[in-house]
């Protein structure tokens, strides 16, 4: 392999692996969007909250598993509380209202997280060594691989859950046709609770991985901005779309940074993913996997 090609592969692999991390955040959005049509802007704040809670507990001397269990419990409570106190009273409101409400929730969570645990940056060590290792001349980050494996496990877990449990099946029915599901006697509130808990868990996993990567700090809640182009590309309602789009966005972003950045100046990673995703959408309005729906009039 020529050095140039090896470098290219390295860039792509690095991008794909960070794409996994984007997908991780995007999946949290998809779960809620599919069942209640809400673009949950608070997902980023939940990521921050989970990471901050975990790292603060560890810093206060709790052993790793206990801190994990406690954070897990907290995230379940947070998810349920949001669903009960905010989303349920707003059922049947237009999507923009629900979106604004989650923006409000994001503010509350961000404020509360920092009020409770402080605003300083915490280092989070998951005990995974971040030394790159060599695969056929390409350097791959061990941590990134671990993150990808964990994300894969989580997606597999979610898939199993939705395929084989009653609530999971109900979730899919609701996602396909909320009205029909309601008529069939499915209990929507229960499903909503379930997806909010699930998105709390996804936030925890994303929070730990991103926190270990970037340090646990306020900017963690901005990972939501990384997830949005992924959602646009993959569709707000497709888990598979979130994963594939995450990989594409990750790779494209890295490639643009390395090969385009020198020409138009640095810092383009802030918007290049958006522009790429939108450009794709303008060509193919239904997104990666979406079906073009026929408007009923």
């Amino acid at each position, binding site marked *: 392999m020529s050095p140039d090609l090896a470098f290219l592969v390295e860039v792509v692999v690095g991008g794909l692996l960070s794409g996994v991390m984007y997908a991780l955040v995007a999946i949290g959005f998809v779960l809620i969007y599919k069942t209640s049509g809400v673009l949950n802007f608070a997902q980023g704040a939940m990521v921050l909250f989970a990471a901050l809670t975990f790292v603060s507990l560890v810093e206060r001397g709790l052993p790793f598993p206990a801190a994990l269990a406690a954070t897990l419990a907290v995230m379940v409570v947070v998810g349920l509380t949001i669903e009960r106190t905010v989303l349920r009273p707003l059922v049947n409101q237009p999507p923009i209202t629900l979106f604004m409400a989650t923006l409000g929730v994001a503010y509350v969570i961000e404020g509360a997280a920092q009020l409770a645990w402080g605003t300083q940056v915490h280092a989070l060590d998951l005990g995974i060594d971040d030394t790159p290792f060599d695969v056929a001349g390409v350097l791959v980050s061990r941590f990134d691989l671990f993150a990808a494996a964990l994300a894969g496990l989580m997606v597999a877990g979610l898939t199993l859950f939705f395929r084989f449990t009653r609530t999971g099946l109900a979730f899919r029915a609701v996602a396909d046709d909320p009205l029909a599901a309601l008529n069939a006697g499915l209990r929507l509130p229960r499903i909503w609770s379930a997806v909010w808990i699930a998105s709390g868990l996804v936030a925890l996993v994303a929070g730990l991985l991103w926190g270990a990567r970037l340090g646990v700090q306020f900017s963690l809640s901005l990972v939501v901005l990384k997830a949005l182009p992924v959602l646009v590309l993959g569709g707000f309602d497709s888990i598979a779309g979130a994963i594939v789009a995450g990989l594409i966005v990750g790779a494209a972003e890295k490639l643009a940074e390395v090969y385009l950045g020198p020409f138009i100046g640095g810092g383009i990673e802030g918007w290049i993913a958006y522009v790429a995703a939108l450009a794709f959408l303008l060509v193919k309005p239904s997104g990666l996997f979406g079906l073009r729906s*026929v*408007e*009923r*009039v």
Partner: protein
Amino acid sequence: MSGLPHRAAPFGRPAPSRPLVPDAAAPRRRARASQDRILTVEGLSLGFGGAVAFAGIDLAVAAGEIHAIIGPNGAGKSSLINAISGLYAPQAGRVRIGEASFARVPAGRLAALGVARTFQNLALFKSLNVVENILSGLAGARRAGLAAHVLGLPAARREAAEHRTRAEAVIDLLQLGAFRARAAGSLPYGLQKRVELARALVAKPRLLLLDEPMAGMSAAEKAEMSGFILAARETFGTAIVLIEHDIGVVMRLSDTITVLDHGRRIATGTPTEIQANPAVIAAYLGADDEEDETEGEVKAA
């Protein structure tokens, strides 16, 4: 075409001048001043990803004619209207509106072509009030620019006054005066249907497409709405394509009836011809998976 028997006059001939139906309940039908075709549909076919909505539909509507399209649920009636008004893109066939012929009707030019429509599910501008909804029916007739309106230039003021007069005329015709300033979304269902008709009528269309204007109405409301539809035709000379499930209403209102079943046209003719058509009767009575209501109505009719 399908192998179903056709009692109706073969398609393609101009609408024949035929004797008035000797039905006491039938309203006075206008002697048509012209035989002008307003709408011609030729071989129109539409499917959604394998499922056929309708196929090979032919239809001819003359100026001032009330032409009902009936058929069991799922027969493709609404899809046909949506294709005629350009919301769906048919795979084959043509739609001619006046002199202009289209493979796909441009929905945005519909108003300019002199076509207005109502929707099966209400499609009012819910937060606008009744007057504003009706005025919005003149969106296509607007000439004065935004700046003229914002600055209150004479041209804009004249236009606004003229449009208001036209809206008031329709409000009078459809007896909506008492609800003028109410938000459309806050009105009861039957009134919303009427406002939608008013919005469609205010532009004085040559062709009006009504997709179930009386769905879900009581008998009294239906009678009232039938009156409005006839009044609209009398006042504006509008040709009307009407989808309606209540066969009694259809028989009383229509000059011509086209029957669809499973996306095929099985008959076209006068109300009396349709009533006696065995294919139609078979389609209605044989369709036991359809609404009871529909069956009951055809028997009653």
